[in-house]
Structure formats: structure tokens, C-alpha cells
């Protein structure tokens, strides 16, 4: 039997008496890319935060490869890579040291780091400290953190934000390669070109 890479069942989240997510359910198989669509304030980021475990849902559950996606479970953290808008940086570590740290903490080595740096155009900034990076470079570094580590599920919140034209082209290409490698990708995006280019499934919320 084929096990869904990501399954969301009856997810609900309230802020006080404001219902942000109400009974959201969907499944995503390996090697598929899904986009969460909805107007501003519809709960796209909240949904992604609940899937990753950055926020606690009030109802429902998230399954990753058939097991309950409890963020405290190391196996779940090993499977799910995410770049949300809450990323922060060590002020005293360089770009390459950040990526090596992630690779090392996931039991890998620095081998993929140089390739990812080159792919994202971060090579010239490899020794720079985060405070000296532009917002676009910071965004690229956040995305790079997902690609230097193992993953079966990739969660991205508006990954096209602050990327230039070349960066957006790279992103579309990168997502296609993730799909080909069997990774399930869930993203929120407002970029119709990116959505048309890569997305297999559309999940509409807040309508």
C-alpha cells in the first residue's frame, strides 16, 4: 500500500475566538508538489507552521509517512525540512559555517555545502557574517539550509520572496528536481508563474 508522504487531517487553529484554520484536510504523496492558496489572512503560514510543529494546532493531526508528526520526534525532524519566515541566524557564524552546522547536525558532512552554495549564488558571500547579507541573500541562505540535509518532505513559505528573476528560475528548477528525487513539497506562494511551472496540486483554504 502506498503511504502518503504528508497527511493533514481535520487541522484547526484559533487565536482566541478567531478561527484561522477550520478542519483543513489533504494528503500529499511522495514526488508531488502542492501549493496552499488563499487570500491574505486565510491562514497559509499558520497551516505551514502547524505542519512543521512551530505552532500547536487546536484540533486535528499531521502525519508524515504515516506516523504522527510530533516535532519532538527526531525521526520526524529528520524527514521534514522547512524554510519559514521565522528563520534566524547566529550573528557570529559565516554563511558556510551555518550550512556545515546543519549538515553536521543531521549526521552528514560538508560535501553538499559547496554545491548548494554555488547553486544558490552564495559562493562570493560564503565567509560573510549574516548581518552583512542582503535580504535576498538571507532568503537564499534559508533555502540552502533545506538542501544540505536529508529530507522527504519540504515545507516552504513563499520561497520566491525577495528572490531576483534568476533566483526564481533557479527555484522552479530546484523544486522540479526535488519532485524527481521523490520529495513531497508543500509551499505557500503568491507567484502565479512559479505555481504554473511546478505545482501538481492546489490546496485552497479560507474561501
Amino acid at each position, binding site marked *: 500500500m502506498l503511504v502518503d508522504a504528508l497527511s493533514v487531517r481535520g487541522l484547526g487553529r484559533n487565536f482566541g475566538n478567531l478561527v484561522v484554520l477550520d478542519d483543513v484536510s489533504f494528503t500529499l504523496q511522495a514526488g508531488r508538489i502542492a501549493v496552499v492558496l488563499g487570500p491574505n489572512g486565510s491562514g497559509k503560514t499558520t497551516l505551514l507552521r502547524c505542519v512543521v*510543529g512551530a505552532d500547536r494546532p487546536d484540533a486535528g493531526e499531521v502525519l508524515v509517512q504515516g506516523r504522527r508528526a510530533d*516535532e519532538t520526534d527526531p525521526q520526524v525532524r529528520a524527514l521534514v525540512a522547512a524554510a519559514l519566515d521565522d*528563520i534566524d541566524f547566529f550573528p557570529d557564524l559565516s554563511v558556510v559555517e551555518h550550512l556545515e552546522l546543519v549538515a553536521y547536525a*543531521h549526521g552528514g558532512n560538508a560535501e553538499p555545502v559547496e554545491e548548494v552554495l554555488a547553486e544558490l549564488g552564495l559562493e562570493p558571500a560564503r565567509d560573510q557574517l549574516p548581518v552583512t547579507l542582503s535580504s535576498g541573500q538571507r532568503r537564499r541562505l534559508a533555502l540552502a*539550509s533545506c538542501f544540505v540535509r536529508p529530507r522527504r518532505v519540504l515545507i516552504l513559505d513563499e520561497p520566491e520572496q525577495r528572490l531576483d528573476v534568476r533566483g526564481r528560475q533557479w527555484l522552479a528548477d530546484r523544486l522540479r528536481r526535488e519532485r524527481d528525487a*521523490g520529495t513531497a513539497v508543500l509551499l505557500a506562494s503568491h507567484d502565479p508563474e512559479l505555481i504554473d511551472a511546478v505545482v501538481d496540486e492546489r490546496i485552497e483554504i479560507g474561501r
Partner: protein
Amino acid sequence: MTAPPATLADAPAGVPTARQVRTHLRRARRRHHDHSLSDVLGDAYVVVLFVGMYGWFAVSASRDMLESPTVGRADPGVRWWLAVAALLAGAGLAWRGLRALGPLLVTPATQSWVTSAPIDRRAWLAPRLAVLLTAATAGTALVGVGVAALGGVTDLAALSWAAAAGAGWGATALASSVVAQGSRAGRRWPTLAGVVPVVAAAVVTALVVVVGRLGDGLPRPAASPAAALVAVGVPLAVAATVLAVRALPRVDRATLTTGAQFANAAATATILLDPSMLAGLVESRRWRQIGRVRSRRFLPGPGWWAMLQADVRRLRRHPSALLIWTALILVQYAAALALPGLAGAAQVVFGYLATDRLTGGLRSISRSPGLRRALGGSDAALRGIHVVVPAIGAGLWWLLTVPTVDGGPSWLGPVLALGVVAAAWRSGTRPPINYGGATVNTPFGMIPVDLLRQGGRGPALLAVLVLVRLFLG
């Protein structure tokens, strides 16, 4: 090649231990700065010296003050029971503080780059738990000694019992808050653990006030409760610590990072000596918890009428401000019983605190030029409209606490009440602090002049009012 996709079976294999990652991170960071162990120990020494010196000075000064004729004679039983109420209220507020912070937390950078990896969470968090437990135990032992010394205890053995009692209950609270952090969302006991001591404090205070004003007052217990507190608190601390260690693997990202925002805001507020930074975060969290409100049209009338209605509506949606306003009435009655000679000064201070709770609208429009532009009219008119609610609140609060104060000329009360409104106005209309201007060298280091000027806006006037009350009362 980029890193290969993981599979469920091999996910945790090859993952380094928490200690290995910590060492890797420490080595990488050390390459960019040379903060040595002796620097850290030097900083710790200064903090310990500062806390010890000023803490003991505060205890001695407070004890002398309590015994001075200016404060007046109070029933020892009243003071004893009000100290119990103060400790209960402090415990409840400390619990809420611990819950807001986590108490276990990781910085956003650590979350993004380290704890998102499948590292054993218990091993990563255990050293932090040990540091927090040590700090809480030591800190609350000092509080125990301070409280006992304030009560006139000088015997070393009795002070040791007080220290042990404080340490036991401090460790219990800290460890229990970690257990709460690792528990599932929606559990009620963590909320109750914060509410029960505060409610108990209110009940004890009310009882002391009612019995004190109508009868002879509550008697002080014959024996010190320190031994009983130790007998219960220490085993509880051990049990709670065991449970806390067991809960560490269940402490999730959501609670670890929420506290970090508070810690960052608190650190920034401390460094810049500007509590409004922390207050802003607390306020935004509070409104977020409320989430949605019932929107209604304003009653027809001129612009100022709508803004006044908005200010009243703001207050109704923020019931804790009214709760504190009410609680301070009880506190004033208690202060008048415990410190009869300082009841007038206490009325000024607590009146200011109560009025300050009602200045949310005034603070919002004073801090935002954009909001003032959008609302239209002159700045003075806008501020004038938003001081109506605090002024009415101050007047009412003052009237309700008049029975606690006697002495002084008849005009003094109304003048001080107006002064309290003026102090709240000055505090509420404080502009943002300019850190780029002139600085002044103080025993605490270089401090921007604007910080002293703005920070003292309300409190400076309040100090004048207190002095007036003390001299004329």
C-alpha cells in the same frame, strides 16, 4: 551532489550527539570572538556582587523603615499575613513569568540551525535545565533569607531554614514549569497553578483588611512555618525535578521559541532601560489571545465622541486593566493597615499605577505619528480626548480609597489626585527615547540624557507628589 533524501528507517542513524553538536558550534563561534571563561566568570562575579550588596542594602533599609516611627505601629499579625499574601501573589506572578518564558528556550538561530535537526532533545536541553534549576534554587534561597531578615530574624539556624524553604519551593516551581512546558496543549493545571496563588493572596488580603478594620486583626502564628515548608517543599522539588527530566523529550519547538521572543524583548528592554519594549510584546500577545471582537458602530456624534467611545471600548476588551485597577484598591487598604504612617504616600503611588493601567489609548496615539495623522485634529486635542477615561478612573479610585487616609489640609487630596492624573499623562505621552543624543557618566555607566529625561517624565512628578504628601500629611 546535494544531500540524499532520507528514509524513515535510517533517519536518526549517524546523527551526532547533542554534546558533539554543542562542541562543534562552540568551536565555530570561538573562531570569531575571544570571549574567554575568565570573562564570563568576571561578569558573573560582578552580577553576584551587585545582587548581594544592593539586595542586603534593600533588606536592611526596608527593615529599618518598618521599625521607624514615620511608618507607624501596625499589628504584627497584620504584617505577617500581608507578607504571606505578598509571597503568594509573587509566586503566582513568577509562575506566569516562567510560563511566558518557557522556561526552557532556545534562540531563534539555534532553532533554525540546530534543534530542527534530529538531535536528542533531552540531551540538548538537560544542561539548560540544570543551569535554570541552580539559578532558581539559589535565587529563591536568597528570597527566603531576605523575607526572614525583613521579619526580624537574625538567628543563623532560622535563616538557614528560610533559605532551605525558599530553595525547595523555587526548585519545585521551576521544575514544575518545565513539566508544564512538556505537557500537551490545553492542559488546565498550568493555568490553575498560576491563578490559585494570586486568588489566595487576594482572599488573604481581603480577610486581613476586613478583620483589621472591623476587629482586632488576625493573630500571628506562634511558630515559624519554615520547617513545615521545607518538609513539604524539598521532597516536592525532588519529585518535580525527576518529572521535569522525563518531560524534556516532549518539549516542542512551539514552546521553545515562544519564550525566546520574550527573553529577547526583556534583554533589549534591560539593555536600553526601556520597559515599553517588553510591554509592547506583552500587549500584542494579549490582543492576539483575544483574537476577534464584536465590532459595533459608534453612537453618532462629533469626532471626539467616537474616540472617547473607542477608548471605553478598548478598556472593556482589556479586562485585566480593570482587574488590576480594582486589586490596587485592596492593596491600598492593606498598605494603610500595615504601614499606617505611609498610607498617604501609598495612595499616591498606587493611584498612579491604577491610572496608568487606563492609559492604553493615550500611549497608542502618543507613540504613533501615523495614527495621529489618520485621526486628524491637533495632537493636543487627541491627547486631551484620550486622557478623559484615565482621569475619571483616577478620580473614582481616589474616592474609593479616601477612608484609608487621614490628616493634611482639605485641599491636599484633590490636588494630589490631579497630580496623579498629570503623572499618568506625562508617562502616557512619553515620546520614543533618543539614544543618539548626549550621554552622562553615572555609577552605572554612560546613560543617554534623553533616557533619564523621558524615563523620569511620570515617575519624577510622582516623586514630587509623594514628598508633598509626606510633608503636608
